């Protein structure tokens, strides 16, 4: 693994350990929010590059996990808002790991896609990543009350789409 004078081999090793431990989670967040596996891969790589570029500073402060999560969520939302960012010529399709195909994923993604993008991010952070209300609010720059209400509404909507039951009946059947 190459190094440079500023980061040094030790820092590269630390960063490598971070990537190996965090990338899978970050990619899951990005994928569920943006709905596109390749885009999610790119988003995570961008976030990791940003983390690496600021590694020396981030590692001394709160740690890279929160920074990377914020970068991934914002980029995933942002990428949906600015699809033209993706328009690019290429001749090479890089090797990409494929998502796990369990036969259910398309239905879940379809249901997720029906949620407003911030609500989708709230649902993913709260229920998939198990991030608490306060931290989710901080990551998304919204209030804790909004996180709670959006998480509840989002989950009810998902159930409605996946099961066919009306959203307003969810409370009774949950």
């Amino acid at each position: 693994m190459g190094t440079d004078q500023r980061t040094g081999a030790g820092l590269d090793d630390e960063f490598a350990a971070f990537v190996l431990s965090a990338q899978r989670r970050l990619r899951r967040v990005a994928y569920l929010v943006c709905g596109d596996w390749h885009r999610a891969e790119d988003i995570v790589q961008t976030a990791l590059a940003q983390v690496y570029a600021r590694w020396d500073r981030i590692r001394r402060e709160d740690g890279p996990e929160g920074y990377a999560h914020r970068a991934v969520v914002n980029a995933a939302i942002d990428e949906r808002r600015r699809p033209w960012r993706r328009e690019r010529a290429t001749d090479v399709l890089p090797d990409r790991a494929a998502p796990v195909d369990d036969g259910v994923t398309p239905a879940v993604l379809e249901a997720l896609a029906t949620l407003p993008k911030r609500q989708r991010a709230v649902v993913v952070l709260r229920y998939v990543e198990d991030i608490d209300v306060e931290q989710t609010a901080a990551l998304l720059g919204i209030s804790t009350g909004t996180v709670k209400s959006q998480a509840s509404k989002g989950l009810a909507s998902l159930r409605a789409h996946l099961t066919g039951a009306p959203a307003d009946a969810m409370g009774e059947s949950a």
Partner: protein
Amino acid sequence: MTGPLGPMDDDSVIGLLRSAGDGPDPTQSDVARAIAAGRKFRRKRQTMQVVGSGVAALTVVALGITTVSALDGDGRQSVTAAADPTNEPKPGAQGPAASLSAKQQNLDNLDLLAKALGSDFRVNPKGQAAGDSTDPKEGLTYPVVEVIPGSPTAERVPSAYKLTAVGGVPGTVTAGVQLRTNQSLDQKCKPRVEKGTQLSACSPLPTINDRIVQVQEFRTEFGKLQDSTGKLRDAAATMIYFARPDGSFVEADLNLVSQAGATVTRETHDSAENLLGDLRDKLAAFAADPKVGPAPGASNGQTPPENPGRPTSDEQNQAYLQEALGSPTFGLYDGKVVLENNKGRYEDLPSDYFSGGASIERISQSQFDAACKARTGLLPCEEKTAEDGSKVYTRSWADRDSTNDELRGESAVYFVRPDGNIALAMISLTSTRVTEANRDEQVDGTLAWFDLFQDALIKAATDPRMTFER
């Protein structure tokens, strides 16, 4: 109503979510790629880079900078868009021309385009290299229309600039990166301002055949576009769209981009824009030509939009606000004003952890009173006089939220307009990593930064072009 998966409780839904997003473990090659991209990102953070040439370049230039997501382990551009130029394109889905070879159809369209632009133009089946200007992909090319060297039009092309054109029905042709997009006409017609580049909203233009096309222009602010070495670059383009009765539309793009080695001056910049302006009507004639394939299918019964992407009055107000605040510090995306990371005066913020935006809206008298009148523990807004003599009220604040170490701040300008509407123009910022120890420094720095833009906010709040729908 029946869902695809049958009855389940919340825990089951959450379980599905978790498994849906799962993927394989990262490998050492993922690490190496992240480090390579990170190094590249670090070098480029403060430098606007122009990548690309011709059509591909314009798209990237329109985006402002290379995003590191597009860099592979060697720092080269390689993105997963379905854009392999060697692939046989899919034929158009509608119309009798669908059976025609899509590649041949693309060439036929370009032939029409070359003829429409005049005798100084020709089709070059391999005129546009894939990849970017700093790293072209050898042997992989797109067909484009180009200007014939030595022709009168070629003489007007600034030295070391490249003029190319592409046209067809988006989604049915390979030529031109922009034409591959699945964006709707309405989406394409939205204005954007980013990092010193401007994409205008569409505006209607009658053609010589009495049809109406939509014109959109991409322009760079002279002197704002630089490559990684700090050398000036330049790019301009005209896009024409023609909505067809079946809901599809024809797009024709004319791109003029400085290449490596070009000496960009105000004169070359202006010449490029003038040349595109002079070719606009010919480009429009092509777009409205019924011979552009594939032929449209049956009418969808809807009248083609007269003003696709036309901003709402609120979107237009935000555009005026962005104009007042200025690029590249503030950009405009989807009708919203956003703070551009690491651009313009972002570097004057007290840390690299800021994000934010700006907005202008109409507020009620009671909202204004609540925000600006003196009350216990709160001073009234400060009254100031704008350049035109209007009285405005301002308030700026910033503080740390100790529960999450975030800083939040707002700079607001209130103006009671002659029509009785009260306009609120405001910049909102948030930042992280604000501790008790650095609170004062961060708050003071934020308030000082707000001061830099207060005149611009006042100008926006008092801008007579603003309209507010009740």
